[in-house]
C-alpha cells in the first residue's frame, strides 16, 4: 500500500519521539531533524528497513560557522515503493565533526560521504574507504567550508594551483579587448596589481 510523505514522517516521529523533531513541510517536501546525531545509523536503518526508503538520493553538508553546531548533514531519501521523498537532517558540533557512515546501508553513501569528507572535512566512522575524491591526496583544505575564500589558497603541490586565482570583480574574469588570449588570461597578468 502506498503512503504519502506526511504519513511516513509522522510514523518516524512516533517511533522515535524523543530524538526526531516535528516534521517541517516546505513546498510539499517533508524535513525531519534528528536531534541526536549519535543515533543516525539506527534511524537510517529504520528508515530503510521499516519505512522502505531504499534509495539514498543524495547526502550533503551545510556549513554555518556562526552556529555552535556548525555542520548540518542532509540526507535525501526516496522510496520507490511509496514514490515519496523525505529529508533527514542532523546537526553536529564544529569541535568534533564526526558522524557514523551509512555506506553499509546504501552503497551510494560511499562516494557521497567521501565527497563530504573532501569538501567539508567531516569524518565518517566505519567508512570503508575514506579518501579525498575531487581534490587531490595531500590537499590541506576543505574548500566548501565558508571560511575558505572563493579565490582559493596557495598550496605547495607541484605546479598546479599554487597561486591564488585573481578575481577582479567576479570569478575568473578574462579582460575584454583584442589582444591575444595569453595576455587577456587572468593568470598571465603581473602580480604587481592588487592580485
Amino acid at each position: 500500500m502506498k503512503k504519502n510523505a506526511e504519513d511516513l514522517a509522522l510514523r518516524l516521529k512516533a517511533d522515535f519521539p524523543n530524538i526526531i523533531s516535528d516534521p517541517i513541510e516546505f513546498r510539499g517536501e517533508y524535513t525531519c531533524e534528528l536531534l541526536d546525531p549519535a543515533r543516525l545509523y539506527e534511524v537510517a536503518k529504520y528508515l530503510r528497513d521499516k519505512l522502505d526508503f531504499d534509495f539514498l538520493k543524495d547526502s550533503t553538508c551545510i556549513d554555518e560557522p556562526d552556529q555552535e553546531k556548525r555542520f548540518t548533514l542532509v540526507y535525501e531519501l526516496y522510496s520507490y515503493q511509496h514514490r515519496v521523498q523525505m529529508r533527514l537532517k542532523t546537526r553536529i558540533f564544529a569541535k568534533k565533526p564526526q558522524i557514523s557512515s551509512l555506506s553499509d546501508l546504501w552503497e551510494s553513501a560511499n562516494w557521497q560521504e567521501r565527497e563530504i569528507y573532501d569538501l567539508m572535512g567531516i569524518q565518517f566512522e566505519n567508512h570503508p574507504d575514506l579518501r579525498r575524491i575531487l581534490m587531490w591526496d595531500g590537499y590541506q583544505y576543505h574548500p566548501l567550508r565558508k571560511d575558505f575564500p572563493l579565490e582559493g589558497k596557495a598550496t605547495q603541490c607541484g605546479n598546479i594551483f599554487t597561486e591564488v586565482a585573481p578575481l577582479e570583480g567576479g570569478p575568473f574574469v578574462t579582460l575584454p579587448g583584442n589582444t591575444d588570449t595569453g595576455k587577456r588570461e587572468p593568470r598571465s597578468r603581473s602580480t604587481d596589481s592588487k592580485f
Partner: protein
Amino acid sequence: MPEFKYLEFDENAAKAEKNAAKIKDVSNTNSPVLESLGETMFLSMGPSHPSMHGVLRFMTELDGETIVKITPDIGYLHRGDEKIAENVTWHQFIPYTDRLDYLAPVANNVAYVMAVEKLLGITDQIPERTQFIRVICCELARISSHLVGIGCFGMDLGALTVFLHAYNEREKIFNLFESLSGARFTTSYPRIGGLSRDLPEGWLGEVDKFCDTFLKAVDDLELFLTRNRIWLDRTEGIGVITKKQAISWGLTGINLRASGGNFDLRRDNPYLVYNRLNFDVPVGTVGDCYERYLLRILEMRESVNILRQCTKLVPNGPINIEDSKIILPPKKRAMTRMEDLIHHFMLATEGITAPPGEVYFGAENPKGELGFYIYSKGGGTPYRLKIRPPSFVSISVMPLLLKGAMISDVPAVIGSLDIVMGECDR
C-alpha cells in the same frame, strides 16, 4: 645496476609453461580457465585517453588481461561549481549549469531553473507555452545526448562510422538550438520564471521536419549496431548489474531502467507538462551493456514521439510570468513606467530575492536524475547549492561492474553507462 632475480623469473616461466600445458589440456573442453599467475600488474588508464569520455582515470590491477581491482580516480575537471554558486546571484548561475552535463546543456538549465522556481513557489505560475517549450528543449537535448552517447560507445568499441552518422544528426539539433537561443552548445536559454526569448517564426515546423528525417537516421544507426555480431559479442552479458544493486548504488535513468527498475521521473513524479503527454518508458531486464544501448535507441524514438505531440500542443500566450521582481519586465515597459524601471534596476543589480527555505528538485536528464538541493537563508544568493550529478553515481559503480572482467570491457562499460566528467566533477 640492479641485480636480476633469475630465480623469480624462472619461477614465473615455470608457471607460464604449466599454464600453457593447461591450455592444451582444456582445448577440447569448454572451460578455458587459466590458473592465476599470482602476479598482478598495475596499469593506469587515462586521464587523457580517447575512451575515457573526458578526464577520467582508472587505476587498474591486472592479472593477465583480467581485472583484479579497478579504482576510478575523478576530480580532474573539478571547478568548484558549488562554491561559485554561493557567490553569484540566482540568475548568474544559469550559464554554469550549461557546463555540467555539457552534452545536454538545456536540460541542465531547465532543471536548475525549476529548482529555483520551486524555492520561489512559482512553479504553478509558469505559463503553459513556456512549459511546452521547455519540454521540447529537454527532449531535443535528450536526443542529442543519446546520439553522442551511442556514437562514442560505438567508437570506443571500434565502430567509427556510427559516430559520424550520429554527429550528422546532432548538427541538425544544434541548428535548431542556434536559431532558438543564439548559441549552438551552451545555450543558457531558460530564465527563472520564463524563457530568455520566444520561439522564432516557423521553429516548430523545423522541429517537425527534423522528427520526420530523424527516425530514418535512427534506423540507420541500428543497422550498424543492433544485430552486429561483433557488437553483440562485445556488449552482451558485459557489465551486468542487478536491479537491487542498481537501487542500492543509486543508479538512475537508463542505467537503472536497463536493470529492470521501472522508474522515470517524467512519468512517476511528473514535472512541466509531462503528465499531459503520452509516452512509453522502455524498461530492460538484464542490465548489461547491450541493453543500456538498446534503451538509448528506444528512448530517442520515444523522444521523437513526445516532440511531435508537443509541437501540436504549444499554445499561444506569454512566455514569462507577470511578476517583474523575478523576471525582467519587457524593454518597452521598463522604459516607460516608473515601477518597472525600478524592478529592472533592482533585478539587474541585486538579482532575485528568494525566501529562506530548502528544496530539492530532480529532473530526468539524459544521463539520469540531475538534482539540485538548495538551502537558502533568503536574499540574492543560495547559502548552499548541492548538485546531484547522475554521472558521479554511474562512475562509482564501475568497480562493481568491472571486477573480474577483461581489460577490453572497460571502454564498453564506460560507453554504456554514458558518463560526462563535467557533471561528475562539477
